């Protein structure tokens, strides 16, 4: 089991290392980390910090994909949780604790709604979460009345731009979410049951596993992760943007999970791989930007690199290439 984990993490790690080495050679001062006012700054820190929303979402998405599902509504849930937080801060005097609690509760409920549609009503995951993907932005716009709301709340800002022991607080939140998720799935049997359900739902049902509640749980959890991500984003931009907060982030998150080695066919998942995947995407984006590639090329360059990474992840492709090379040598 342990051995297997390492080998599936090998390719994502090589990719990340390659991008970093590229920067080491071509980007001056890429690895410099400075301490200003007791806070860490530098390109590396910046990449990790920018990857935070995708990393947190990818954690939830990993669980969903492990059950052979998908959740494309996370971007909309980000917008909703940000809007809820903004509206509470602007209209009530509730403490930060309640702001966070209520926003996350709403995000969790929206995730649970996805879970309900998928596991108990039996709608296809793509279709069910597509509903919320479209409707969710509308809901967020309704909450803010269509406006971009500006939040001026020092404590709330700490989530996105604060530092704790010199480290950006959002990175610490990510770490906490990761550790809790890892601990809960690996010290209880939940991780095993998720893999079983993703691997063979029918056999899992025959084994006595409550397949429906496992599926329900992963979507609710994915909603919660999106909520956390939404709070960090709106704290970071000091506002709630119902139309553009978290737009298309679901695609980056899905990509991160896949790059990280979790197969779409379900049954296996690599939580750490998803974190690496998110970092690959962000470091790629940052690299392209700092290399001065004209803006209009960025998406295409990103797509090409991702494409190469993904086909090299396929064991079959690697075998084919190897076989082809051997034949040429002969």
């Amino acid at each position: 089991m342990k051995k297997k984990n390492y080998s599936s993490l090998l390719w994502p790690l090589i990719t990340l290392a390659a991008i970093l080495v590229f920067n080491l050679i071509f980007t001056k001062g890429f690895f410099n980390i400075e301490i200003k006012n007791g806070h860490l700054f530098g390109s590396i820190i910046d990449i990790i910090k920018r990857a935070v929303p995708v990393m947190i979402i990818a954690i939830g998405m990993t669980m969903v994909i492990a059950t052979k599902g998908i959740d494309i509504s996370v971007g909309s849930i980000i917008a909703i949780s940000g809007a809820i937080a903004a509206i509470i801060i602007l209209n009530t005097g509730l403490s930060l604790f309640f702001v966070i609690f209520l926003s996350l509760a709403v995000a969790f409920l929206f995730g649970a709604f996805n879970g309900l549609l998928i596991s108990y009503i039996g709608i296809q995951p793509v279709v069910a979460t597509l509903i919320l993907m479209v409707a969710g932005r509308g809901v967020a716009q309704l909450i803010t009345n269509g406006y971009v709301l500006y939040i001026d709340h020092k404590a709330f800002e700490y989530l996105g731009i604060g530092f704790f022991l010199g480290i950006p607080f959002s990175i610490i939140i990510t770490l906490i979410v990761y550790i809790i998720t890892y601990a809960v799935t690996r010290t209880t049997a939940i991780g095993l049951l998720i893999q079983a359900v993703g691997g063979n739902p029918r056999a899992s049902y025959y084994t006595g596993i409550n397949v429906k509640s496992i599926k329900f749980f992963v979507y609710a959890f994915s909603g919660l992760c999106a909520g956390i991500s939404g709070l960090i984003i709106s704290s970071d931009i000091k506002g709630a943007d119902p139309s553009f907060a978290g737009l298309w982030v679901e695609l980056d998150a899905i990509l991160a999970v896949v790059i990280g080695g979790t197969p779409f066919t379900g049954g296996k998942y690599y939580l750490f791989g998803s974190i690496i995947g998110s970092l690959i995407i962000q470091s790629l984006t940052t690299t392209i930007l700092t290399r001065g590639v004209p803006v209009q090329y960025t998406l295409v360059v990103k797509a090409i690199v991702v494409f190469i990474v993904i086909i090299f992840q396929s064991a079959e492709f690697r075998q084919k290439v190897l076989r082809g090379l051997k034949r040429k040598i002969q």
Partner: protein
Amino acid sequence: MITANPILAINRLCKDFPGVKALDNVDFFLRKGEIHALMGENGAGKSVLVKVLTGVYKRDKGKIYFEGKPFYVHSPKEAQECGISTVYQEINLVPNLSVAENIYLNRQPQIRGFIDWKATNKKAEKVLERLDLKLDVKQPLGSFSIAIQQMVAIGRALDLDAKVLILDEPTSSLNVKEVQQLFTIMRKLKSLGHSIIFITHFIDQVYEISDRITVLRNGMLVGEFLTDSIDRVELIAKLMGKKLAEFSSEQAEIEQGDENKQGIPFLEVQGLGKKGLIEPFDLRMYKREVLGLAGLLGSGRTEIANLIFGIDRADKGQILLNGKSVNISNPHDSLKFGFGLCPEDRKSEGIIEDLSIRENIILSLQVKKGCFKYIKRKIQEKLVSKYIDMLKIKTPDMEQAIKNLSGGNQQKVIVARWLASNPGLLIMDEPTRGIDVGAKAEIQKLILELSQKGMAILFISSELEEVIRCSQKVVVVRDKAKIAELTGTQINEHTIMNKIAVV
């Protein structure tokens, strides 16, 4: 055996799959204008024969002659073009297209590159008329019953000029009336000179419609018989691989259970049933007892197991556990009540391919304990190695993915999974199917040992010897209903086969 002008002659056909001889020198002859039943239990080679014939699989050895000429095709489409069409149980037509579209899919009449709908519909009506079928051919196929859909599939085959029609278990999802409809059409086709290969496991239907019967068993030809000259018991004996003479002489050597067990049974099933699945049935099971379920494939054995275990929800009757009524609506409930089920289809219902042997084994126990009480890794390993030793599971280590094991070893892992959950009742649905002789014997031995230790076991098997050897009580099922319960000396092949055969 070759009588006048067989339209299709198969000579000494062989097909090997890794580890199995799926077809071993099989002969088969189909005459013009006959309905020929092809029979055999699981793994007999019926479907392999059809697949080799229609070009899905490549043959290893042997010759096929169609209308006197050597016949070799590479795909079902090619076979269809030559005049051999197959209608599968799972109809492979498109339900949301119209009946006419389905009949003429990919070959609609055209006018200058556009589909001529009028001609399509008219021709479709004509084709169905030949089957005495009047339908609105513009309606989507899915709006008709399975029976009608099957007939449309037959119609399509007819229009493709099929001389040989292969019907692969066409009646398994039809009701009595629909079966008759289908038979009417089959007779009509026969009178028009088409030849039909009818694959089924329903004895009654074979006697009603077929002219000849070919029986296969374990990839080998048992024989070809005229339907009128073989009686039911003899046919069943052939299907089960017995010689008729053996019945009377062979005595079951079983340990007698207490015939008059007193007191409250461990498990009592009262009138449990589900419409369309199985007629209401009663069962009484005591601890330390093996109850055998005998019957042919498709008779309702698995349905009984699934209903008790909660895979399917009963719409009638109740289950009493130690005299108290229990409500079982899914396998999770039955697990909590201490039931276990080794399912019939090991691959799709049993193993979870990507998980390791260890994970596969602890799964049910883990679910029983609840997912927050994760069994400590050390305890898991101890438990798993205990069962690996006990069941002699052959594997280098317990972290191997289960998909790397052989069928027999996979089966043992599933058995281990349920033993680990320490069930009071263990239902074993064909636990010995598709595994080698040695493993079979081990599983039979295990069943006896477990029952002696106090477990109640419901044992389902297609192999009669096994059921007789292991069970203290045998329930016979036929045509989706329980028809007899045998105990003591009644448990012998002769009695059981007679029960299965008698109308």
